[in-house]
Protein backbone atom coordinates (compact mmCIF):
# COMPACT_ATOMS: atom_id res chain seq x y z
CA UNK A 1 0.00 0.00 0.00
CA UNK A 2 2.13 2.82 1.29
CA UNK A 3 5.17 1.15 -0.23
CA UNK A 4 3.84 1.79 -3.75
CA UNK A 5 2.77 5.30 -3.04
CA UNK A 6 5.94 6.25 -1.24
CA UNK A 7 8.87 4.11 -2.34
CA UNK A 8 11.46 5.63 -0.02
CA UNK A 9 9.80 6.27 3.29
CA UNK A 10 12.55 8.20 5.00
CA UNK A 11 12.81 10.75 2.20
CA UNK A 12 9.08 11.21 1.96
CA UNK A 13 8.16 11.64 5.62
CA UNK A 14 7.80 15.33 4.92
CA UNK A 15 4.81 14.57 2.71
CA UNK A 16 3.14 12.80 5.66
CA UNK A 17 3.50 15.63 8.13
CA UNK A 18 2.50 19.26 7.72
CA UNK A 19 2.92 21.77 10.55
CA UNK A 20 -0.78 21.63 11.42
CA UNK A 21 -1.85 18.16 10.28
CA UNK A 22 -0.57 14.58 9.89
CA UNK A 23 -1.41 11.74 7.51
CA UNK A 24 -3.19 8.79 9.10
CA UNK A 25 -0.55 6.31 7.82
CA UNK A 26 1.86 7.76 10.37
CA UNK A 27 -0.14 5.84 12.98
CA UNK A 28 -1.18 2.75 11.07
CA UNK A 29 1.47 1.77 8.53
CA UNK A 30 3.67 -1.15 9.68
CA UNK A 31 6.58 0.06 7.52
CA UNK A 32 6.54 3.44 9.18
CA UNK A 33 6.46 1.68 12.54
CA UNK A 34 9.61 -0.25 11.58
CA UNK A 35 11.30 2.93 10.49
CA UNK A 36 10.44 4.83 13.66
CA UNK A 37 11.67 1.93 15.82
CA UNK A 38 15.02 2.04 13.96
CA UNK A 39 15.40 5.77 13.80
CA UNK A 40 13.81 6.88 17.06
CA UNK A 41 13.38 4.25 19.77
CA UNK A 42 16.54 2.33 18.94
CA UNK A 43 18.66 5.47 18.80
CA UNK A 44 17.55 7.93 21.45
CA UNK A 45 17.82 7.55 25.22
CA UNK A 46 15.17 5.09 26.43
CA UNK A 47 14.24 4.74 30.09
CA UNK A 48 15.14 1.28 31.40
CA UNK A 49 14.37 1.52 35.09
CA UNK A 50 15.53 2.84 38.43
CA UNK A 51 18.65 1.76 40.34
CA UNK A 52 16.57 0.87 43.39
CA UNK A 53 14.89 -1.89 41.35
CA UNK A 54 18.21 -3.71 41.31
CA UNK A 55 19.88 -2.95 44.65
CA UNK A 56 22.17 -6.01 44.92
CA UNK A 57 24.87 -7.33 42.59
CA UNK A 58 23.30 -9.72 40.10
CA UNK A 59 19.80 -8.23 40.43
CA UNK A 60 18.26 -7.80 37.01
CA UNK A 61 15.12 -6.63 35.26
CA UNK A 62 14.36 -7.39 31.65
CA UNK A 63 13.30 -4.36 29.62
CA UNK A 64 12.38 -3.59 26.06
CA UNK A 65 14.39 -0.88 24.32
CA UNK A 66 12.74 -0.14 20.99
CA UNK A 67 11.98 -3.65 19.79
CA UNK A 68 15.01 -5.15 21.52
CA UNK A 69 14.66 -7.39 24.57
CA UNK A 70 17.35 -6.23 27.00
CA UNK A 71 18.53 -6.96 30.54
CA UNK A 72 19.27 -4.20 33.07
CA UNK A 73 21.65 -5.68 35.66
CA UNK A 74 23.50 -4.47 38.73
CA UNK A 75 27.20 -5.27 38.38
CA UNK A 76 29.48 -6.47 41.16
CA UNK A 77 31.25 -3.10 41.16
CA UNK A 78 27.95 -1.35 41.91
CA UNK A 79 27.50 -0.02 38.37
CA UNK A 80 24.70 -0.92 36.02
CA UNK A 81 24.85 -2.67 32.63
CA UNK A 82 22.19 -2.98 29.94
CA UNK A 83 22.68 -6.04 27.74
CA UNK A 84 20.89 -7.63 24.82
CA UNK A 85 18.99 -10.63 26.12
CA UNK A 86 20.67 -12.96 23.65
CA UNK A 87 23.36 -15.58 23.97
CA UNK A 88 26.25 -15.14 21.50
CA UNK A 89 26.40 -18.91 20.98
CA UNK A 90 23.20 -19.91 19.24
CA UNK A 91 20.96 -17.02 20.18
CA UNK A 92 19.13 -18.31 23.23
CA UNK A 93 17.58 -15.70 25.50
CA UNK A 94 19.70 -15.38 28.63
CA UNK A 95 16.95 -14.39 31.08
CA UNK A 96 13.51 -15.88 30.67
CA UNK A 97 12.03 -14.16 33.73
CA UNK A 98 10.88 -10.59 34.04
CA UNK A 99 13.21 -10.05 37.01
CA UNK A 100 15.45 -11.92 39.40
CA UNK A 101 18.98 -12.30 40.65
CA UNK A 102 21.48 -14.06 38.43
CA UNK A 103 24.13 -14.54 41.13
CA UNK A 104 27.75 -13.83 40.28
CA UNK A 105 27.30 -14.44 36.57
CA UNK A 106 24.78 -15.25 33.85
CA UNK A 107 24.53 -18.84 32.72
CA UNK A 108 22.81 -19.70 29.46
CA UNK A 109 20.22 -22.45 29.87
CA UNK A 110 21.07 -24.09 26.54
CA UNK A 111 24.79 -25.05 26.63
CA UNK A 112 25.96 -23.41 29.86
CA UNK A 113 28.09 -20.60 28.48
CA UNK A 114 28.63 -18.18 31.34
CA UNK A 115 29.00 -14.39 31.28
CA UNK A 116 30.06 -11.67 33.70
CA UNK A 117 27.52 -8.98 34.61
CA UNK A 118 28.98 -6.69 31.95
CA UNK A 119 28.30 -9.34 29.31
CA UNK A 120 31.91 -10.49 28.85
CA UNK A 121 32.39 -14.22 28.36
CA UNK A 122 33.39 -16.03 31.54
CA UNK A 123 33.56 -19.58 30.39
CA UNK A 124 32.44 -22.14 27.84
CA UNK A 125 32.21 -25.80 28.88
CA UNK A 126 35.34 -27.61 27.62
CA UNK A 127 36.44 -24.42 25.92
CA UNK A 128 40.03 -25.43 25.04
CA UNK A 129 39.21 -28.73 23.38
CA UNK A 130 35.97 -27.51 21.85
CA UNK A 131 37.16 -24.28 20.26
CA UNK A 132 40.82 -24.95 19.50
CA UNK A 133 41.66 -23.69 16.05
CA UNK A 134 38.34 -21.90 15.59
CA UNK A 135 37.92 -18.17 15.65
CA UNK A 136 35.65 -18.43 18.67
CA UNK A 137 36.85 -18.41 22.26
CA UNK A 138 37.92 -16.08 25.03
CA UNK A 139 39.13 -12.68 23.92
CA UNK A 140 36.89 -12.60 20.86
CA UNK A 141 34.29 -9.89 21.49
CA UNK A 142 31.80 -11.89 19.41
CA UNK A 143 31.65 -14.28 22.36
CA UNK A 144 30.31 -11.60 24.69
CA UNK A 145 26.71 -10.71 25.28
CA UNK A 146 26.22 -7.49 23.33
CA UNK A 147 25.77 -4.45 25.57
CA UNK A 148 23.73 -1.33 24.80
CA UNK A 149 25.93 1.16 23.00
CA UNK A 150 25.52 3.71 25.79
CA UNK A 151 24.14 3.68 29.34
CA UNK A 152 23.72 6.72 31.56
CA UNK A 153 22.15 7.23 34.97
CA UNK A 154 20.61 10.48 36.18
CA UNK A 155 19.61 10.69 39.86
CA UNK A 156 19.01 6.94 39.90
CA UNK A 157 17.05 6.78 36.61
CA UNK A 158 18.75 4.44 34.14
CA UNK A 159 18.67 5.15 30.41
CA UNK A 160 20.14 3.23 27.47
CA UNK A 161 20.78 4.20 23.88
CA UNK A 162 21.44 1.65 21.14
CA UNK A 163 23.32 4.23 19.06
CA UNK A 164 27.04 4.80 19.55
CA UNK A 165 26.81 8.48 18.73
CA UNK A 166 24.33 11.13 19.64
CA UNK A 167 23.67 13.69 22.34
CA UNK A 168 24.47 12.84 25.95
CA UNK A 169 21.52 12.02 28.20
CA UNK A 170 21.54 15.54 29.65
CA UNK A 171 21.69 17.15 26.21
CA UNK A 172 18.88 14.91 25.03
CA UNK A 173 16.64 15.67 28.00
CA UNK A 174 17.28 19.41 27.94
CA UNK A 175 14.79 21.26 30.16
CA UNK A 176 12.69 18.06 30.44
CA UNK A 177 15.29 16.94 32.98
CA UNK A 178 13.05 18.78 35.45
CA UNK A 179 10.92 15.60 35.53
CA UNK A 180 13.61 13.87 37.59
CA UNK A 181 14.86 16.93 39.47
CA UNK A 182 11.37 17.90 40.57
CA UNK A 183 10.65 14.35 41.72
CA UNK A 184 13.91 13.93 43.65
CA UNK A 185 14.05 17.47 45.06
CA UNK A 186 10.68 16.92 46.74
CA UNK A 187 12.30 14.18 48.82
CA UNK A 188 13.91 15.35 52.08
CA UNK A 189 16.85 13.08 51.22
CA UNK A 190 17.00 14.29 47.63
CA UNK A 191 16.34 10.81 46.25
CA UNK A 192 13.42 8.59 45.38
CA UNK A 193 13.10 4.84 45.56
CA UNK A 194 10.98 2.52 43.49
CA UNK A 195 7.74 1.10 44.86
CA UNK A 196 7.43 -2.50 43.73
CA UNK A 197 5.66 -3.69 41.60
CA UNK A 198 4.78 -1.74 38.52
CA UNK A 199 1.44 -1.98 36.77
CA UNK A 200 1.57 -3.09 33.15
CA UNK A 201 -1.29 -2.33 30.79
CA UNK A 202 -1.55 -2.93 27.05
CA UNK A 203 -3.18 -0.33 24.81
CA UNK A 204 -4.60 -1.43 21.49
CA UNK A 205 -3.35 1.58 19.63
CA UNK A 206 -0.25 3.21 18.19
CA UNK A 207 2.25 4.54 20.74
CA UNK A 208 1.98 8.11 19.44
CA UNK A 209 -1.73 8.25 20.27
CA UNK A 210 -0.76 7.78 23.92
CA UNK A 211 1.98 10.43 23.78
CA UNK A 212 -0.35 12.93 22.14
CA UNK A 213 -2.98 12.38 24.82
CA UNK A 214 -0.70 13.01 27.78
CA UNK A 215 -0.61 16.80 27.56
CA UNK A 216 -3.96 17.13 25.81
CA UNK A 217 -5.57 19.60 28.18
CA UNK A 218 -8.81 19.60 26.19
CA UNK A 219 -9.75 15.99 26.90
CA UNK A 220 -9.91 15.48 30.70
CA UNK A 221 -13.25 17.12 31.41
CA UNK A 222 -14.80 15.27 28.46
CA UNK A 223 -13.17 11.86 28.65
CA UNK A 224 -13.10 11.58 32.43
CA UNK A 225 -16.39 13.26 33.19
CA UNK A 226 -18.09 10.13 34.54
CA UNK A 227 -15.46 9.51 37.21
CA UNK A 228 -15.15 13.20 38.03
CA UNK A 229 -18.89 13.50 38.60
CA UNK A 230 -19.14 10.27 40.59
CA UNK A 231 -16.25 11.28 42.87
CA UNK A 232 -17.73 14.76 43.30
CA UNK A 233 -21.11 13.26 44.28
CA UNK A 234 -19.58 11.05 46.97
CA UNK A 235 -17.44 13.98 48.17
CA UNK A 236 -20.56 16.13 48.54
CA UNK A 237 -22.45 13.39 50.38
CA UNK A 238 -19.57 13.03 52.83
CA UNK A 239 -19.45 16.79 53.36
CA UNK A 240 -23.22 16.84 54.02
CA UNK A 241 -22.76 13.86 56.33
CA UNK A 242 -25.34 11.83 54.42
CA UNK A 243 -22.45 9.43 53.92
CA UNK A 244 -20.04 8.27 56.59
CA UNK A 245 -16.30 8.67 56.57
CA UNK A 246 -13.87 11.26 55.28
CA UNK A 247 -13.08 12.16 51.70
CA UNK A 248 -9.36 11.70 51.12
CA UNK A 249 -7.45 14.10 48.88
CA UNK A 250 -7.48 11.49 46.14
CA UNK A 251 -11.25 11.95 45.68
CA UNK A 252 -10.56 15.60 45.09
CA UNK A 253 -8.05 14.76 42.39
CA UNK A 254 -10.72 12.65 40.72
CA UNK A 255 -13.52 15.17 41.07
CA UNK A 256 -11.25 17.84 39.54
CA UNK A 257 -11.82 16.10 36.22
CA UNK A 258 -15.43 17.30 36.37
CA UNK A 259 -15.14 20.50 38.41
CA UNK A 260 -12.33 21.91 36.26
CA UNK A 261 -14.55 22.41 33.24
CA UNK A 262 -13.38 22.41 29.66
CA UNK A 263 -12.98 26.21 29.46
CA UNK A 264 -10.79 26.34 32.57
CA UNK A 265 -8.18 24.05 31.05
CA UNK A 266 -7.18 26.91 28.75
CA UNK A 267 -5.73 28.54 31.87
CA UNK A 268 -2.98 25.93 32.00
CA UNK A 269 0.07 26.24 29.81
CA UNK A 270 2.29 23.95 27.78
CA UNK A 271 5.96 24.59 27.12
CA UNK A 272 7.35 22.63 24.22
CA UNK A 273 11.04 21.90 23.76
CA UNK A 274 13.33 20.49 21.09
CA UNK A 275 13.40 16.66 20.70
CA UNK A 276 9.59 16.58 21.21
CA UNK A 277 9.60 17.05 25.00
CA UNK A 278 6.88 19.12 26.71
CA UNK A 279 5.73 20.34 30.09
CA UNK A 280 2.18 21.01 31.24
CA UNK A 281 2.06 23.57 34.01
CA UNK A 282 -0.74 23.75 36.52
CA UNK A 283 -1.38 22.65 39.99
CA UNK A 284 -3.91 20.05 41.11
CA UNK A 285 -4.34 21.40 44.62
CA UNK A 286 -1.40 19.40 45.90
CA UNK A 287 -0.44 21.89 48.56
CA UNK A 288 -3.19 21.70 51.11
CA UNK A 289 -2.74 22.74 54.73
CA UNK A 290 -3.60 19.47 56.45
CA UNK A 291 -1.41 18.13 59.29
CA UNK A 292 0.35 15.60 57.00
CA UNK A 293 1.42 18.29 54.56
CA UNK A 294 2.53 20.58 57.36
CA UNK A 295 4.63 17.80 58.91
CA UNK A 296 6.25 17.22 55.53
CA UNK A 297 6.86 20.95 55.03
CA UNK A 298 8.59 21.08 58.40
CA UNK A 299 10.99 18.25 57.51
CA UNK A 300 11.72 19.87 54.16
CA UNK A 301 12.39 23.30 55.65
CA UNK A 302 14.74 21.77 58.20
CA UNK A 303 16.60 20.01 55.42
CA UNK A 304 16.72 22.72 52.76
CA UNK A 305 15.98 26.02 54.52
CA UNK A 306 12.91 28.12 53.89
CA UNK A 307 14.10 29.72 50.67
CA UNK A 308 15.15 26.55 48.86
CA UNK A 309 12.05 24.77 50.15
CA UNK A 310 9.78 27.40 48.60
CA UNK A 311 11.68 27.04 45.32
CA UNK A 312 11.27 23.26 45.33
CA UNK A 313 7.64 23.22 46.28
CA UNK A 314 6.82 26.10 43.96
CA UNK A 315 7.87 24.24 40.80
CA UNK A 316 4.72 24.55 38.78
CA UNK A 317 4.48 21.26 36.90
CA UNK A 318 1.58 18.97 36.29
CA UNK A 319 3.19 16.65 33.83
CA UNK A 320 6.45 16.24 31.89
CA UNK A 321 6.60 14.39 28.62
CA UNK A 322 9.95 12.99 27.55
CA UNK A 323 9.60 12.06 23.89
CA UNK A 324 9.28 9.37 22.63
CA UNK A 325 8.44 7.17 25.56
CA UNK A 326 8.04 8.68 28.98
CA UNK A 327 5.27 10.50 30.78
CA UNK A 328 6.15 11.73 34.26
CA UNK A 329 3.92 13.30 36.90
CA UNK A 330 6.70 14.46 39.18
CA UNK A 331 4.61 16.09 41.97
CA UNK A 332 2.87 12.72 42.44
CA UNK A 333 5.95 10.59 41.71
CA UNK A 334 4.29 8.64 38.90
CA UNK A 335 6.10 7.55 35.76
CA UNK A 336 4.70 5.83 32.69
CA UNK A 337 7.09 4.22 30.22
CA UNK A 338 5.94 3.31 26.72
CA UNK A 339 7.05 0.04 25.12
CA UNK A 340 5.74 -0.20 21.56
CA UNK A 341 4.75 -3.81 20.77
CA UNK A 342 3.56 -3.24 17.23
CA UNK A 343 1.98 -0.57 15.07
CA UNK A 344 -1.33 -1.03 16.89
CA UNK A 345 -0.23 -2.38 20.30
CA UNK A 346 1.58 -0.52 23.06
CA UNK A 347 2.60 -1.67 26.50
CA UNK A 348 2.77 0.90 29.29
CA UNK A 349 4.73 0.24 32.47
CA UNK A 350 3.52 2.47 35.25
CA UNK A 351 5.74 3.03 38.27
CA UNK A 352 5.36 4.83 41.54
CA UNK A 353 8.26 6.25 43.57
CA UNK A 354 8.62 7.00 47.25
CA UNK A 355 10.16 10.29 48.41
CA UNK A 356 13.02 9.22 50.67
CA UNK A 357 12.71 10.77 54.09
CA UNK A 358 9.11 11.95 53.63
CA UNK A 359 6.39 10.93 56.13
CA UNK A 360 4.42 7.78 55.38
CA UNK A 361 1.23 9.82 54.89
CA UNK A 362 2.75 11.66 51.92
CA UNK A 363 3.62 8.34 50.32
CA UNK A 364 0.10 7.02 50.96
CA UNK A 365 -1.41 10.07 49.30
CA UNK A 366 0.39 9.63 46.00
CA UNK A 367 -0.09 5.86 46.30
CA UNK A 368 -3.86 6.42 46.36
CA UNK A 369 -3.54 8.38 43.12
CA UNK A 370 -1.39 5.60 41.66
CA UNK A 371 -4.01 2.99 42.48
CA UNK A 372 -7.03 4.99 41.36
CA UNK A 373 -5.59 6.41 38.17
CA UNK A 374 -2.89 4.01 37.06
CA UNK A 375 -3.80 0.50 38.24
CA UNK A 376 -5.26 -2.09 35.84
CA UNK A 377 -8.62 -1.27 37.48
CA UNK A 378 -8.14 2.45 36.81
CA UNK A 379 -11.07 4.80 37.17
CA UNK A 380 -9.42 7.23 34.75
CA UNK A 381 -7.24 5.58 32.12
CA UNK A 382 -9.99 3.12 31.20
CA UNK A 383 -11.72 5.84 29.21
CA UNK A 384 -8.43 7.06 27.70
CA UNK A 385 -7.66 3.55 26.48
CA UNK A 386 -11.15 3.31 25.04
CA UNK A 387 -10.49 6.54 23.12
CA UNK A 388 -7.07 5.35 21.98
CA UNK A 389 -8.59 2.16 20.56
CA UNK A 390 -11.34 4.12 18.84
CA UNK A 391 -8.80 6.58 17.43
CA UNK A 392 -6.72 3.79 16.04
CA UNK A 393 -9.80 2.17 14.49
CA UNK A 394 -10.80 5.44 12.87
CA UNK A 395 -7.31 6.12 11.53
CA UNK A 396 -7.09 2.62 10.09
CA UNK A 397 -10.20 3.39 8.03
CA UNK A 398 -10.40 5.35 4.80
CA UNK A 399 -12.91 7.80 6.18
CA UNK A 400 -10.32 10.57 6.05
CA UNK A 401 -6.63 11.06 5.38
CA UNK A 402 -5.54 13.60 7.96
CA UNK A 403 -5.35 14.07 11.70
CA UNK A 404 -5.94 17.70 12.70
CA UNK A 405 -3.62 19.60 15.03
CA UNK A 406 -5.00 23.04 14.20
CA UNK A 407 -6.12 24.13 17.66
CA UNK A 408 -4.52 27.55 18.37
CA UNK A 409 -2.15 26.96 15.46
CA UNK A 410 -0.30 30.15 14.58
CA UNK A 411 -0.94 31.69 17.99
CA UNK A 412 1.77 29.92 20.02
CA UNK A 413 4.71 31.97 21.23
CA UNK A 414 8.08 30.81 19.92
CA UNK A 415 11.49 31.81 21.21
CA UNK A 416 14.82 30.07 20.58
CA UNK A 417 13.16 26.84 19.52
CA UNK A 418 10.91 26.73 22.61
CA UNK A 419 7.20 26.98 21.86
CA UNK A 420 4.81 28.13 24.57
CA UNK A 421 1.06 28.06 24.36
CA UNK A 422 -0.20 31.66 24.50
CA UNK A 423 -1.93 32.96 27.65
CA UNK A 424 -5.35 31.35 28.06
CA UNK A 425 -4.68 29.00 25.19
CA UNK A 426 -3.46 26.03 27.26
CA UNK A 427 -5.50 23.65 25.14
CA UNK A 428 -3.33 24.54 22.15
CA UNK A 429 -2.32 21.45 20.20
CA UNK A 430 1.26 22.76 20.37
CA UNK A 431 2.57 19.60 22.14
CA UNK A 432 1.31 17.39 19.28
CA UNK A 433 2.77 19.72 16.64
CA UNK A 434 6.03 19.76 18.58
CA UNK A 435 6.16 15.97 18.76
CA UNK A 436 5.55 15.59 15.03
CA UNK A 437 8.26 18.13 14.30
CA UNK A 438 10.74 16.02 16.27
CA UNK A 439 9.39 12.86 14.63
CA UNK A 440 10.12 14.20 11.15
CA UNK A 441 13.62 15.26 12.16
CA UNK A 442 14.39 11.84 13.63
CA UNK A 443 13.07 9.97 10.62
CA UNK A 444 15.01 12.07 8.13
CA UNK A 445 18.33 11.66 9.94
Amino acid sequence: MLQERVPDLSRSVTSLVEPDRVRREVYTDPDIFELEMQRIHERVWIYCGHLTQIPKAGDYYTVQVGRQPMIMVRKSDGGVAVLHNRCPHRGNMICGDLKGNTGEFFRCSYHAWTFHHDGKLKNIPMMESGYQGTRFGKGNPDCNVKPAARVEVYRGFVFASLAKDGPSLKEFLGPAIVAFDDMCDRAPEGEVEIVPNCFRVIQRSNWKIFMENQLDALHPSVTHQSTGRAAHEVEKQIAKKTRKGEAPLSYHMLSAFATVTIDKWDGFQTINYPHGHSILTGYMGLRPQDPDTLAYDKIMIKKYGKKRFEEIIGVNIHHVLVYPGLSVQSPLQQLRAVRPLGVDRTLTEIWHFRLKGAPEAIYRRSLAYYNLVNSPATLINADDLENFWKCHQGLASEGGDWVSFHRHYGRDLEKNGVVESAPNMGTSEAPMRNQMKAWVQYLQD
Partner: protein
Amino acid sequence: MPKNDLQHDVEQFLYYQAELLDTKQWQAWIDLFADDGIYWMPPDASYKTWEGQPAIFAEDKNLMNVRRGRVLHPDAWSQRPLWGTNHLVSNVSIQKEHKNGDVEVRSRFHMMELRRDDVRHFAGSYLHKLKKSKAGYRIQLQRVDMTNAQAAYDYVLQVWV
Protein backbone atom coordinates in the same frame (compact mmCIF):
# COMPACT_ATOMS: atom_id res chain seq x y z
CA MET B 1 -25.51 -25.89 63.48
CA PRO B 2 -24.29 -29.02 61.70
CA LYS B 3 -21.21 -28.47 59.58
CA ASN B 4 -22.81 -29.25 56.22
CA ASP B 5 -25.44 -26.55 56.73
CA LEU B 6 -22.72 -24.01 57.31
CA GLN B 7 -20.93 -25.14 54.15
CA HIS B 8 -24.19 -24.79 52.26
CA ASP B 9 -24.95 -21.31 53.64
CA VAL B 10 -21.50 -20.02 52.85
CA GLU B 11 -21.60 -21.43 49.34
CA GLN B 12 -24.98 -19.86 48.68
CA PHE B 13 -23.64 -16.52 49.84
CA LEU B 14 -20.64 -16.73 47.52
CA TYR B 15 -22.83 -17.70 44.59
CA TYR B 16 -25.14 -14.80 45.34
CA GLN B 17 -22.22 -12.36 45.49
CA ALA B 18 -21.10 -13.52 42.03
CA GLU B 19 -24.65 -13.45 40.69
CA LEU B 20 -25.08 -9.79 41.71
CA LEU B 21 -21.90 -8.92 39.79
CA ASP B 22 -22.96 -10.84 36.70
CA THR B 23 -26.41 -9.24 36.73
CA LYS B 24 -24.89 -5.79 37.32
CA GLN B 25 -26.81 -5.14 40.52
CA TRP B 26 -24.03 -2.93 41.79
CA GLN B 27 -25.87 -1.33 44.70
CA ALA B 28 -27.10 -4.66 46.03
CA TRP B 29 -23.56 -5.97 45.67
CA ILE B 30 -22.09 -3.04 47.65
CA ASP B 31 -24.76 -3.59 50.30
CA LEU B 32 -23.31 -7.06 50.91
CA PHE B 33 -20.33 -5.38 52.55
CA ALA B 34 -20.12 -4.45 56.21
CA ASP B 35 -19.94 -0.69 56.81
CA ASP B 36 -16.17 -0.95 57.17
CA GLY B 37 -15.85 -3.73 54.59
CA ILE B 38 -13.04 -3.73 52.04
CA TYR B 39 -12.72 -5.05 48.50
CA TRP B 40 -9.09 -5.79 47.73
CA MET B 41 -7.26 -7.14 44.70
CA PRO B 42 -3.49 -7.21 45.33
CA PRO B 43 -1.05 -7.18 42.42
CA ASP B 44 1.01 -9.80 44.20
CA ALA B 45 -0.17 -12.87 46.11
CA SER B 46 2.51 -12.34 48.76
CA TYR B 47 0.93 -9.09 50.01
CA LYS B 48 -0.46 -9.37 53.53
CA THR B 49 -2.33 -6.10 53.92
CA TRP B 50 -4.43 -3.94 51.62
CA GLU B 51 -2.99 -0.66 52.94
CA GLY B 52 0.26 1.05 52.08
CA GLN B 53 1.09 -0.98 48.97
CA PRO B 54 0.06 -0.82 45.33
CA ALA B 55 -3.32 -2.43 44.77
CA ILE B 56 -5.30 -3.18 41.65
CA PHE B 57 -8.39 -2.50 43.75
CA ALA B 58 -8.41 -1.34 47.41
CA GLU B 59 -11.86 0.06 48.04
CA ASP B 60 -13.98 0.92 51.01
CA LYS B 61 -17.71 1.47 50.54
CA ASN B 62 -17.29 5.13 49.64
CA LEU B 63 -14.87 4.30 46.88
CA MET B 64 -17.10 1.47 45.70
CA ASN B 65 -19.79 4.10 45.33
CA VAL B 66 -17.48 6.27 43.24
CA ARG B 67 -16.89 3.32 40.96
CA ARG B 68 -20.59 2.49 40.87
CA GLY B 69 -21.49 6.10 40.07
CA ARG B 70 -18.94 6.19 37.30
CA VAL B 71 -20.02 2.93 35.71
CA LEU B 72 -23.65 4.05 35.66
CA HIS B 73 -22.93 7.57 34.39
CA PRO B 74 -24.29 8.07 30.88
CA ASP B 75 -20.92 9.47 29.77
CA ALA B 76 -18.83 6.54 30.95
CA TRP B 77 -17.69 6.01 27.39
CA SER B 78 -15.99 2.70 27.92
CA GLN B 79 -19.21 1.33 29.45
CA ARG B 80 -21.28 1.93 26.35
CA PRO B 81 -20.54 -1.14 24.26
CA LEU B 82 -22.04 -4.52 24.91
CA TRP B 83 -20.30 -6.19 27.78
CA GLY B 84 -20.98 -8.76 30.45
CA THR B 85 -19.42 -11.31 32.73
CA ASN B 86 -20.06 -14.85 33.86
CA HIS B 87 -18.57 -16.11 37.12
CA LEU B 88 -18.22 -19.69 38.27
CA VAL B 89 -17.34 -20.08 41.93
CA SER B 90 -16.06 -23.38 43.27
CA ASN B 91 -13.64 -25.19 45.63
CA VAL B 92 -15.30 -23.53 48.61
CA SER B 93 -13.36 -24.32 51.74
CA ILE B 94 -14.10 -22.89 55.17
CA GLN B 95 -10.82 -21.95 56.82
CA LYS B 96 -11.99 -20.64 60.16
CA GLU B 97 -15.21 -20.59 62.06
CA HIS B 98 -15.49 -18.23 65.00
CA LYS B 99 -17.75 -18.67 68.00
CA ASN B 100 -19.84 -15.65 67.03
CA GLY B 101 -20.56 -17.20 63.66
CA ASP B 102 -18.03 -15.20 61.59
CA VAL B 103 -16.22 -17.30 59.02
CA GLU B 104 -13.19 -17.11 56.80
CA VAL B 105 -13.60 -18.93 53.54
CA ARG B 106 -11.44 -19.59 50.50
CA SER B 107 -12.77 -20.41 47.06
CA ARG B 108 -11.77 -20.27 43.42
CA PHE B 109 -13.46 -18.51 40.55
CA HIS B 110 -13.42 -18.40 36.80
CA MET B 111 -14.80 -15.34 35.06
CA MET B 112 -15.51 -15.03 31.37
CA GLU B 113 -15.90 -11.46 30.15
CA LEU B 114 -17.36 -10.28 26.89
CA ARG B 115 -16.64 -6.80 25.54
CA ARG B 116 -17.90 -6.00 22.09
CA ASP B 117 -16.87 -9.15 20.19
CA ASP B 118 -13.90 -10.00 22.40
CA VAL B 119 -13.79 -12.59 25.15
CA ARG B 120 -11.31 -12.57 28.03
CA HIS B 121 -10.92 -15.14 30.79
CA PHE B 122 -9.82 -14.44 34.32
CA ALA B 123 -9.32 -16.91 37.11
CA GLY B 124 -8.10 -16.81 40.66
CA SER B 125 -8.98 -17.27 44.27
CA TYR B 126 -11.24 -15.50 46.73
CA LEU B 127 -10.68 -15.04 50.41
CA HIS B 128 -13.83 -13.89 52.17
CA LYS B 129 -13.97 -12.75 55.77
CA LEU B 130 -17.68 -12.88 56.53
CA LYS B 131 -19.40 -11.32 59.50
CA LYS B 132 -22.50 -12.97 60.81
CA SER B 133 -25.35 -10.52 61.27
CA LYS B 134 -29.11 -10.73 61.73
CA ALA B 135 -29.58 -10.03 58.05
CA GLY B 136 -27.17 -12.81 57.10
CA TYR B 137 -23.50 -12.57 56.19
CA ARG B 138 -21.77 -9.24 55.58
CA ILE B 139 -18.38 -9.03 53.85
CA GLN B 140 -15.61 -7.69 56.05
CA LEU B 141 -12.98 -8.41 53.44
CA GLN B 142 -13.16 -9.77 49.91
CA ARG B 143 -9.64 -10.52 48.77
CA VAL B 144 -9.27 -11.42 45.09
CA ASP B 145 -6.01 -12.96 43.93
CA MET B 146 -5.91 -13.04 40.16
CA THR B 147 -3.80 -15.75 38.58
CA ASN B 148 -2.61 -13.08 36.17
CA ALA B 149 -1.99 -10.49 38.90
CA GLN B 150 1.60 -9.98 37.77
CA ALA B 151 1.04 -10.25 34.03
CA ALA B 152 0.35 -7.32 31.73
CA TYR B 153 -3.35 -6.54 31.41
CA ASP B 154 -4.64 -6.41 27.87
CA TYR B 155 -6.95 -3.43 28.43
CA VAL B 156 -8.18 -2.95 32.01
CA LEU B 157 -10.74 -4.12 34.56
CA GLN B 158 -13.61 -1.74 35.11
CA VAL B 159 -15.76 -3.38 37.75
CA TRP B 160 -15.15 -5.74 40.61
CA VAL B 161 -14.33 -9.38 39.93
